């Protein structure tokens, strides 16, 4: 009813303008909003379609990633040709454990990044460590908003001529190592990989492949959410090769000795 006395005493000196030292918000550009709504909205906290372990191993001259091609819908082995390891560019490969929808969301964003890089045509391409750092920032920021991307990622590639293997989880914990495994692989396969690397720190490509295949076999025996159909990705200075649909021969004769198994 009455005019607000404050607006007369302190008329806005700078209506709709940028704060001094800051930039004007142009229409159509993305604005990082600093105004927060009251409270934090918690979103879905459980994954739906999931992928199990991914294994990563550094050998002499490159890195190798391995994982099965299953998307589990809870306990149902629903999608049996999911590629959980993807090539990003000629020096980088990404593997994902966890929610497949979240992985596919990030996959689309990363693919768009590669296209944008192509368009810029300035000779710069995404390197494995840069992708790892970027992923870490994305995952950590999502977790800080209580809306995580429910995945653990393995980034593998050649960085400045040297093999690189890095891991980030859904809460943004990041590290890099010469041997990493996610999911059940961390408990079952990683000890086998450590043993192999201790015996021979600079493995050849063939030795690394044999070790990973053995780990995949053990995981198929022991992980109830695993499938006997795998992908193996090899990254060397020459480039990236991803083999799909690798099936391993397994021996289930021991099942006869299990009491109650008929």
């Amino acid at each position, binding site marked *: 009813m009455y005019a607000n006395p404050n607006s007369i005493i302190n008329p806005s000196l700078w209506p709709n*303008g940028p704060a001094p*030292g800051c*930039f*004007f918000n*142009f*229409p159509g*550009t993305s604005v990082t909003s600093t105004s927060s709504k009251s409270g934090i909205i918690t979103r879905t906290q459980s994954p739906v379609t999931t992928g199990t372990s991914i294994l990563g191993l550094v050998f002499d001259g490159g890195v190798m990633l391995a994982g099965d091609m299953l998307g589990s819908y809870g306990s149902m082995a629903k999608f049996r040709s999911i590629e959980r390891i993807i090539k990003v560019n000629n020096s980088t490969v990404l593997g994902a454990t966890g929610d497949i929808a979240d992985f596919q969301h990030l996959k689309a964003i990363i693919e768009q990044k590669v296209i944008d890089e192509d368009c*810029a045509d*300035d*000779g*710069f391409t995404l*390197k494995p*460590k*840069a992708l*790892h*750092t*970027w992923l870490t*920032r994305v995952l950590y920021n999502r977790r800080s908003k209580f809306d995580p991307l429910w995945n653990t990622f393995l980034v593998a590639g050649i960085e400045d001529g040297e093999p690189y293997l890095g891991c980030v989880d859904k809460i943004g914990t990041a590290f890099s190592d010469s041997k990493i495994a996610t999911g059940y692989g961390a408990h079952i396969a990683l000890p086998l990989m450590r043993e192999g690397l201790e015996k021979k720190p600079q493995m050849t490509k063939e030795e690394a492949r044999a070790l990973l295949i053995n780990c995949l076999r053990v995981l198929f025996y022991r992980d109830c959410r695993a499938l006997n159909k795998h992908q193996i990705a090899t990254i060397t200075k020459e480039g990236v090769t991803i083999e799909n649909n690798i099936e391993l021969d397994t021996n289930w004769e021991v099942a006869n000795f299990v009491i109650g198994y008929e």
Partner: protein
Amino acid sequence: MARRYDTRTTIFSPEGRLYQVEYAMEAIGHAGTCLGILASDGIVLAAERRNTNKLLDEVFFSEKIYQLNADMVCSVAGITSDANVLTNELRLISQRYLLQYGESIPCEQLVSWLCDVKQAYTQYGGKRPFGVSLLYAGWDHQYGFQLYQSDPSGNYGGWKATCIGNNSAAAVSMLKQEYKEGETKIDDALALAIRVMSKTMDATKLTPDKLELATLTRHDNKTYIKVLPVAQVKTLIADHEKKEAAEAAKSKPSTAS
């Protein structure tokens, strides 16, 4: 006449000009000179310091030369307060990239980003353009040493040697004559910078307090950005004056007859 079309940045004049952008460049033409020279082993930036008042409390190490990130340095010509906003933003852009990707932003990407912002101020918002031109000197692993220049219109270009600010046209034509591509090392570039600055600066005599010099070089896989100390600038000026005197003596044969 054209007065009706020059009060707002966002409109063209009937002759197809953006007056505000041109007036901004005019403002820069009155500012202290800045010059950049690309050498095969580094880059030299030279700047004319205008605030030489003895009462000034030396808060800043450098008046016109700013380090942007580990691998880039810039010098500014124009309205100082506008320049501060832009250099601050350049530093923020660099750090955001470093945080996201764990590596230094490529030089051209940084320049391009800021120029997009500068261009936006000539097309949207009804705000005036920034009255600053910048010279960027940087290194990245793809293209090595690079020198860029940007102006209020948001346009930028890569240069082997260039100049902005007062008397820049004269300086650029001098550089065109004297710059030797492929044969210039950092010391040659420094000497050339002093030679050009002495001709284009208002002062009758070059003194270290009126001139800022910075170099960007690489050793052992690391970039080194150095604003030269007063003593070194003094030495370089002295060398230049000696050379000048020698040349004058050569060209002027003995008049004693």
